[in-house]
């Protein structure tokens, strides 16, 4: 796996943090934490800006979090013609991180409201591509 396997469209291939994509394939949404200073990072990163250290551990994000804000996009970039409209949301998790993702189409857009509880669900877009979205 490389970053090309993540999302509907991705422009990156190589990254030290590629385990993020491997974890997604195992059904896990993961962040990292610096072993030295304990700072939590999402998106995950293999380097800590505070300590300039590169020893990290992975942690899973699988609780329910609270939706902070959201928008339904009617006109997406190239590559998103087939999936639009789609609703993006930012959710704050008790693990101490905020995550941006699509909110599942299973949820009636009219019921989407700030404060509602959502959990991240890793999924396969097809044989090659992985993502995660928010479900109730």
């Amino acid at each position, binding site marked *: 796996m490389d*970053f090309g396997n993540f999302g509907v469209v991705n422009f990156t291939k190589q990254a030290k943090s590629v385990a993020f994509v491997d974890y997604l394939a195992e059904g896990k949404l993961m962040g990292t934490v610096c072993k030295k200073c304990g700072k939590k990072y999402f998106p995950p990163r293999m380097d800590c800006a505070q300590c300039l250290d590169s020893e990290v551990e992975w942690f899973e994000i699988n609780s329910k979090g609270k939706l902070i804000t959201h928008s339904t996009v009617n006109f997406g*970039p190239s590559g998103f013609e087939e999936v639009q409209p789609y609703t993006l949301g930012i959710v704050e998790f008790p693990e101490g991180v905020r995550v*941006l993702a699509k909110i599942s189409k299973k949820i009636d857009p009219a019921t989407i409201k700030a404060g509602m509880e959502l959990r991240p669900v890793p999924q396969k877009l097809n044989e090659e591509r992985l993502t995660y979205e928010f479900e109730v």
Partner: protein
Amino acid sequence: MKEDVAVIGVGQTNFTRDCGMSVRELCFEAYKDAAQGLNLDPKDVDASIIASAPEYDKQRTPAALVSEYLGFSPSPTFYLETVCSSGTTGVRVGYSLIKSGLHDIVVMVGFQKMSELDSRIAAQVMGRGDDTMFSSPFGTTMPGGHALYAQAHMDAFGTSEEQMAKIRVKNSFYGSQNPKANYKKRLDLESCMNADLVCTPLKKFDCCANCDGASAVILASADKARKYTDKPIWIMGTGMATSELNWSSRASLTNFDSVRNAAKSAYEMAGVGPEDINVAEVHDCFTISEILAYEDLGFAKTGEGGKLIDEEATYHTGRIPVNVDGGLLSKGHPIGGTGGSQVRTIVQQLREECGDSQVKDAKIGLVQNVGGVGTYANVIIFGRD
């Protein structure tokens, strides 16, 4: 007033959907407009800064080409970028080149030629201004990013779609008086409220349109400024700041921390506060952005930006006139060309050249220019003698 670095010339092209020119020709028109009446030989230009976003043009390293076309070679030139705020970053860096003693006269030319990209590719290019590893894969867009702020602001403070629409009504009123604006139609509240949704809660007229355009700002040290013009406009303060690009890292989704930090620096450097500003140009790429700007610049309290437009306080006859040239919403938004156009309006206001939209007794003006979804922010404060 600190008299270190002055603006001695400002210019811009028409902002238009399809300029029919090459980039170098577009930049020439902006510079020619800025240099008008100055009697400035291109060989007297000590350095130039070329600002744009590089994804819209196939010409690599346009700085050398533009510098050559404008006759500045062999003086130094370079290219600089902070997406939509590139132009004012260029003005700030130009200030430092002069204040440091390296140069006496610096020209900033900002441009964008966007008409050769179709709108979906343009959306992709703009989406790549988000984190391409972790955000773009979800189909984030520029309007979508600002919509996330708009929704959060509405939920937190009760800001309404009508207040956002009123921003556009104001800016279209002034756009209709600006011969260089791309969108010259005057819009009423009803048309704005009934327009198609682009991304909830933003509708068509809440969004600015990309376009072709260029602008130029000529900066000079105090001595040189007085040699070339009897109406120098001084840079009193410049502040710049950055927010994390990642959505996960942003502390607030109801204001732009970058703008607050930049404003703090600029006010401190200038020795003035929001109450001293007579006229402002703010980055209204979306109507919500102008409401955020009211709050982040201290023109309104946090959460009360919507009230300012309800009270019509930002019309040219109001307490704090904002975007009385049409703003990005009606002028159009040629990424790299935008900041210089904002500076042009403030300089013209301080020189009292603005006809029907002239703000009375304008002595101190402010430009706020934002790159990305609040990612970069410049605040520059200008004053006249």
